[in-house]
């Protein structure tokens, strides 16, 4: 396997599992992209070779353990923060699992990410420190850098449970060009049964897309794009007004371009259906047509969600840059996206200063 396309194809079309010849490579790929649990759920109930089925069963069990652990960490944070009376909004994987969304099925979940109002940060920080969380880093520059420019506190780790928490007050670094309306995002939160919250459905997509295209270097991007595919399908199914709401929210947060790119790529790679009123598309393409379709054609298909400069094909090349041994490939593309991620986060002068401090410390 030269790239991750076979994994993408199988996620989009589980019935094609009967044609898979090289399960070893496929599973190595899925593990490297943190998609083995999602894949295992996607392939559940199919008639597969017994050894493959046993591995998928283990992956499902592992995903279940990850879900329990993530929800427990959220519950412990809830207990620590409950006396403050501030809204605590779960983000990313923990949010999907807590809300029982399809995107949370088998998903690997790392740190606990929460969002709180910026004004509540000092109290939240104090309460977490009192409940057994500790700073991971000791470095004064990093600390100052985080507090001044970042959208989160420096990472904290719980001394007994060894789990990290990222406390966000915004979804993008303060230095990034888009300025999401955090007040509106917090205001529109959706309640969970236990007193915690998630973002509203449109804002969940906006956050995921922002994280993928306006912040990081696309590492682990296939998994994030899979989240977006699952979320779009589920929300659109549930609520006929979802697509217009998403368009409105994306524009409001200044993230229309990131959301548009996420939708186009999810459609192209995972066959995510796009609403007709939003995009003049009559039927999802079959996989052959999809792989033949050219960038221009795709832009046309998903018109209304276009409007960014770099062609999607570069993003696609980056997302698929992994082989059947689980190795990363296309180093030049990766480097390009790494540089881009820094560029997006900071104005040039600040980037230069940041890299200078980092470089001096290495010397």
């Amino acid at each position, binding site marked *: 396997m030269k790239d991750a396309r076979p994994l993408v194809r199988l996620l989009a079309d589980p019935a094609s599992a009967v044609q898979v010849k090289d*399960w*070893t490579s496929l*599973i*190595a790929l899925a*593990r*490297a992209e943190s998609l083995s649990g999602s894949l295992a759920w996607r392939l559940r109930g199919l008639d597969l*070779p017994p*050894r*493959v089925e*046993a*591995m998928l069963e*283990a*992956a499902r*069990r*592992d995903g*279940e*353990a990850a879900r*329990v652990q993530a929800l427990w960490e959220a519950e412990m944070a809830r207990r620590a923060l409950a006396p403050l009376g501030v809204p605590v909004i779960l983000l990313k994987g923990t949010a999907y699992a807590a809300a029982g969304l399809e995107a949370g099925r088998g998903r690997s979940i790392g740190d606990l990410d929460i969002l709180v109002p910026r004004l509540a940060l000092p109290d939240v920080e104090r309460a977490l420190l009192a409940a057994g969380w500790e700073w991971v880093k000791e470095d004064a520059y990093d600390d100052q850098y985080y507090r001044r420019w970042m959208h989160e506190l420096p990472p904290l780790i719980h001394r007994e449970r060894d789990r990290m928490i990222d406390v966000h007050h915004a979804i993008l670094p303060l230095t990034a060009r888009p300025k999401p309306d955090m007040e509106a995002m917090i205001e529109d939160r959706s309640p969970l049964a236990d007193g915690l919250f998630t973002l509203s459905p449109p804002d969940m997509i906006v956050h995921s897309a922002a994280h993928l295209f306006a912040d990081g270097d696309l590492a682990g991007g296939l998994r994030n794009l899979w989240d977006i595919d699952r979320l779009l399908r589920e929300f659109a199914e549930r609520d006929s007004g979802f697509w217009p709401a998403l368009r409105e929210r994306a524009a409001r947060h200044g993230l229309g371009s990131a959301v548009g790119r996420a939708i186009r790529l999810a459609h192209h790679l995972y066959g995510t259906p796009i609403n007709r009123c939003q995009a003049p598309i009559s039927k999802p393409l079959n996989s052959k047509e999809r792989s033949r379709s050219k960038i221009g054609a795709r832009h046309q298909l998903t018109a209304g969600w276009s409007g960014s400069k770099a062609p999607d094909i570069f993003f696609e090349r980056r997302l698929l840059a992994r082989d059947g*041994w*689980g*190795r990363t490939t296309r180093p030049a593309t990766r480097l390009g996206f790494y540089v881009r991620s820094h560029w997006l986060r900071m104005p040039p002068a600040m980037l230069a200063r940041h890299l200078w401090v980092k470089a001096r410390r290495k010397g």
Partner: protein
Amino acid sequence: MRHDFRLQVGPVSFRIGSQWRQPVAALRRLYAGYPEPEGVCDFTVRLEAERFWRRWLRPSVAIRGDYVLPDAAPLPLAQGLLAAEMGMNLQMALGQKRFLLLHAASVERDGRGLLLTGHSGAGKSTLGALLGERGWRFMGDEFALLGLEDGLLHPFPRAVSLKNESLGLLGGIDPGRLGPVLTGTPKGRIRHLRPNAEAVARMGEPARPALILFPRFGRDLDPAVREVGAAEAFMRLTQASTNYVALGESGFGALTRFVGTLPSKAIDYADTAQAEALIDGLWAEA
């Protein structure tokens, strides 16, 4: 990858890829006679250069694969075989979720299994290998696999890594079963030993566990046996397991059943003859 090798050990299969020929050639020799996995492999191990020029210049082997740990340092190419072995162990320690994984040696007699567990230096590898040459069936020296549903011990007879002095204790080993001498490894001067033909031929046969021993080796120790209560055995086995916590309730069920039904003893010994005598005595009672 340029060179690769597939290996079936008990119920677990590996695919090992390498940028260099030597580690794979050494694996092929060491595991001669092992079955080839049918179909999918459970784990992928990659032996590759840390930086691309390090493939030729002072080549050093980074241990990578499906599961990786931070802080891992590469090994020199001359220790490529050890890197492959560590790579397989790493995948088991972090990725094995079908069995409760215990850091223990295991041997079998009359369908009943004996488990030897303890910290490195307690001598479980040496004792396991020794018993495997003295009428017991060798089931593994590094990891014992406890079935989550069936409660059986499943064999995992990988090559045993032995220090030179331990090798002397075994006596009369067919040199064809030995790997190359590896010097200057993190474990000192070591050599790998392929388990005997019976251990390989019967790698598909599990055993009903019958006795847990916690050996302790010390040149000044008097031979001694001490009862280990179920509570202590439970605690010690959770610390000897890399996946107990990850397995959740199925791990709890398997381990409480295990320590609840089996006798556990701690034994002290100063040489292997003492250990053998103690084990024979305890086995007769178990």
